[in-house]
């Protein structure tokens, strides 16, 4: 049983640097193939999360089936997998690529090759995919497609003669792109006769149907009622239904070899399904599971605490549900004297952290406080034991520490030559060491740095963008652990140490940061009815201080008959505001105070 001739199937991803126009091109493809009628078109159809549309970024991959009537008179089944463009989500890209035979590499005709273009192209090449270069935004007056072609050939070593020039905005060239996909991307291989072998490339939790897994069939087929096994997880289940997204969900009789679609597992435990696992039949299993993928390792850790301690269990449930399709998310319980019970959560990067926090707040209606981000420090104690410390609170006493190692990255920045000085300066300020500088072309230089991850997770990216007028792009990967002189900086409010405000910092930067943080907190913490001294300290030594002056008056003097309702409404408003505050001792501290470190300028 097969539903579609594999020679007429094309599975491909669209990869690009952020903002180069993947989602717009996806939209045009859906439109041109009449998958979605024009009247139903919503911009960036595949970005289904509110956060994605609002920010114009793709966070989650999304697989959609498109039927294309090609110029050769044949109808092709395209399975299009949209991928994120932000460096935090590189792992999503590699997951998507494992389900494809081809990749459309989109390059912005006005921006040219950027850092993520390079890394996405190499991911695609390493996955042995057929690459279809597409130069987007050719409608813009500043487009220079011919130069971009040269860049693609010189910088990526990808032949660009056949590069398709398109405009996601006007739709120009989209037809040529679809034809190029037919000719350049190989059809899937695999056997319809072999037992089922399918890769789970994504999954999500549905309140009514349980876990729904997005799959790519490599061998065999799957249909409703099949008794399946997850080869690594070992869990078994009966298939409740299969379907495809176009992009609305569409039930089908079966998913055949080479096809991409979804399987309703009916499993109610979000943890039961692992992305990257292989699905097969219980009674007729395939010989070996697919390679799966290396789980993405979290790089950034932060404490997430519910403002209302009663929400602790809800937060745990919410994290578990998000984990279903975001396996990179990890967490462990954390207790803070200031914030109560919460979790130390690991993220792929700062954007990932922001996105997860926002999803938890919006989709699960939780009010959360996030604490200063930290990395995974290796702390070697005098007794020789090594501790992995992801929270400043877990740092042992100074007397028991022999030395501390911190994670370093290999960072790659592509920038126009005129900004190399500015980039180098920025790197130095962030303890970066320039290791290489390659002139890619007249217009771009690729700079390599070794830089501590801890430096990169604060304001590095924003600074890079602002100092290079937005031209420079950044990519990075983990390098190694190196010894650093690190200290724990504590913040005291009204003389009491607030554990949730502590962070680990390089000794040379401690004074500057302490001062910056004290000043920032002074702005953030509203005036109270009493004076609030803010101090920065290393151990017992106070190294910075500021004061929130007391608010001397907070009362409406007039309150007669008709004023009373008004007065009450004022108090109600005051109460709403208070919900966003955390009382630490007698000081009311707004949420953003705990992330003030991100806003401190050196």
């Amino acid at each position, binding site marked *: 049983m097969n539903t579609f001739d594999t020679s007429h199937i094309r599975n491909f991803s669209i990869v690009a640097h952020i903002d180069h126009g993947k989602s717009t091109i996806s939209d045009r493809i859906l439109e041109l193939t009449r998958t979605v009628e024009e009247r139903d078109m919503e911009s960036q159809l595949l970005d289904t999360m509110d956060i994605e549309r609002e920010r114009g970024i793709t966070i989650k991959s999304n697989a959609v089936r498109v039927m294309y009537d090609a110029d050769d008179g044949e109808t092709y089944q395209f399975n299009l997998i949209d991928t994120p463009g932000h460096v935090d989500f590189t792992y999503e890209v590699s997951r998507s690529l494992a389900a494809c035979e081809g990749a459309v590499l989109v390059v912005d005709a006005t921006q040219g090759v950027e850092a993520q273009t390079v890394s996405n192209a190499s991911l695609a090449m390493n996955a042995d995919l057929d690459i279809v270069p597409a130069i987007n935004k050719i409608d813009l007056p500043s487009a220079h497609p011919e130069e971009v072609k040269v860049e693609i050939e010189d910088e990526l070593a990808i032949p660009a003669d056949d590069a398709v020039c398109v405009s996601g905005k006007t739709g120009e060239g989209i037809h040529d792109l679809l034809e190029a996909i037919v000719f350049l991307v190989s059809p899937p291989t695999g056997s319809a006769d072999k037992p089922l072998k399918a890769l789970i490339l994504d999954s999500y939790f549905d309140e009514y149907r349980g876990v729904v897994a997005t799959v790519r069939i490599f061998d065999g087929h799957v249909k409703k009622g099949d008794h399946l096994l997850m080869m690594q997880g070992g869990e078994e289940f009966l298939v409740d239904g299969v379907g495809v997204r176009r992009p609305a969900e569409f039930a089908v009789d079966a998913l055949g070899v080479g096809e991409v679609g979804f399987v309703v597992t009916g499993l109610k435990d979000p943890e039961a399904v692992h992305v990257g696992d292989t699905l097969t039949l219980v009674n007729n299993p395939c010989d070996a599971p697919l390679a799966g993928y290396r789980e993405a390792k979290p790089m950034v850790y932060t404490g997430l605490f519910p403002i209302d301690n009663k929400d602790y269990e809800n937060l745990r449930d919410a994290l578990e549900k998000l984990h279903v399709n975001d396996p990179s998310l990890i967490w462990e319980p954390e207790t803070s004297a200031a914030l109560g019970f919460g979790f130390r959560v690991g993220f792929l990067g700062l954007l990932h952290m922001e996105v997860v926090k926002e999803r938890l707040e919006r989709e699960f209606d939780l009010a959360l406080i996030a604490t200063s981000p930290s990395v995974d420090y290796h702390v070697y104690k005098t007794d020789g034991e090594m501790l992995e410390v992801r929270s400043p609170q877990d740092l042992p006493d100074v007397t028991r520490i022999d030395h501390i190692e911190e994670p370093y990255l290999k960072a790659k920045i592509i920038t126009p030559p005129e900004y190399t000085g500015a980039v180098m300066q920025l790197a130095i300020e962030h303890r970066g060491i320039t290791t290489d500088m390659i002139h890619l072309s007249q217009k771009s230089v690729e700079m390599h740095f070794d830089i501590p991850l801890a430096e990169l997770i604060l304001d590095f990216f924003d600074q890079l963008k602002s100092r290079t007028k937005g031209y420079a792009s950044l990519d990075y990967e983990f390098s190694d652990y190196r010894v650093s002189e690190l200290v724990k900086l504590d913040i005291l409010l009204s003389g009491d140490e607030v554990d949730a405000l502590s962070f680990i910092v390089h000794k040379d930067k401690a004074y500057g940061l302490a001062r910056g943080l004290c000043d920032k907190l002074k702005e953030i913490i509203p005036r109270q*009815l*009493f004076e609030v001294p803010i101090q920065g300290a290393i151990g017992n030594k106070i190294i910075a201080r500021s004061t929130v002056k007391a*608010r*001397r*008056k*907070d*009362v*409406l*003097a*007039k*309150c*007669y*008959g*008709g004023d*009373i*309702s008004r*007065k*009450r409404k*004022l*108090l*109600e408003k*005051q*109460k709403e505001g*208070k919900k966003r505050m955390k009382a630490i001792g*007698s000081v009311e501290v707004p949420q953003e105070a705990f992330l003030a470190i991100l806003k401190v300028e050196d």
Partner: protein
Amino acid sequence: MRFEALYLHIPFCKSKCAYCDFDSRAMGEGCALDEAVATYCDALAAQIDAHGRAGDLAEVQTVYIGGGTPSLLGVRLVELVRRVLGYCDPVEFTCEANPESFTAELARSLRAAGVTRVSLGVQSLQADELRVIGRIHSVEQALEAVALAKGAGFSTSCDLMCGLPGQTFDAWRDTLKRVLLADPDHVSVYPLQLEEGTPLERLEAAGKIEVPDEDFQAQCMDIAAELLHAHSYERYEVASYAKPGHRCQHNIAYWTGVPYLGIGRSAASMCAATGDVSLLLENTFDGTPDSESDGTSDGAAGRSSANSSTARIRFTQLDDAGEEFDHEFLTPREAMAEDLMLACRMTDGIGPELLARAIRVVPANELSAACDRAVERKLAAWDNGTLKPTHLGWLGGNKLFGIFWDLAADA
């Protein structure tokens, strides 16, 4: 429905002050003031009669005619006073007056008609301050008005404002000292509040004037408290100071949950939400108010015991004729929280009697937690079984009030 306090609103002024967002129509010279006032007063009279005949006013203990500028009405004000007194026999009858329109003749007539108390809008005794806030009287007129009111036998009150543009501590002290020399029986001290849409707010936003900050206001309030106290005025509420026997009973009614009736545009009324309410407002509402009360009114037992264990209704007159109202309902619990909140405005604080009533409506643990919180934050302190606001509680009242208003809903 029987009310114990009656308020009449006179929404007319000769000219509108720069800080004022009250309901009042300014009538410049030569405008059709007289006609508008006549029509309005007729409507007031009709409403007074309607309530009077219905017996709503029989138990009224205090009357307050405010504005606007009631003294602007002249003889019509005296007529209103007489009309009201045809239906009740209050112990206190206050009229607000502005210095420029408080004439000797008016003073005599009002006193003769039965007014016992005059509240004068003095605001400041510095000519430059009066000018910038748009007052149309002089320093001398203000002082003369105080003397006149006292001479006519009124319990006399002066309203003062601090935190005015250009005001200095010295100027504020000077105003206070000159007021003390004039020797009124009662003084109210209000920090200037920049209300949205007022000329003063626009000037401040445009950077044309500088308004002292809250710290300055706080200091002014402290200076006033100190000076007035030294001259045997007792602070009995956040903004109110009185010589013995001269507390404003009408205002105290607002803060102790006593049912009050407000007549006139924008005037507010409050009473227990019992069946009578629908009769009172007749065609105002589509149906009978949804009352959660047990239907009994312990208000009848006397002024000191308000209807705080029943649901309440508060309504605000929206038009001149008294045909349109805005209304809100307060559950017994909300009503109780409101009483507690308002009690925190007063020196007398939350006494054993109020606590005893509160405990019938609010869970005891929540009530005691709220009291503890207020004490812990130094906003209030226990004194012989009464929770009284501290100095911090006076100035940071919103925090203190918030603690008790939070009791309006389940914790």
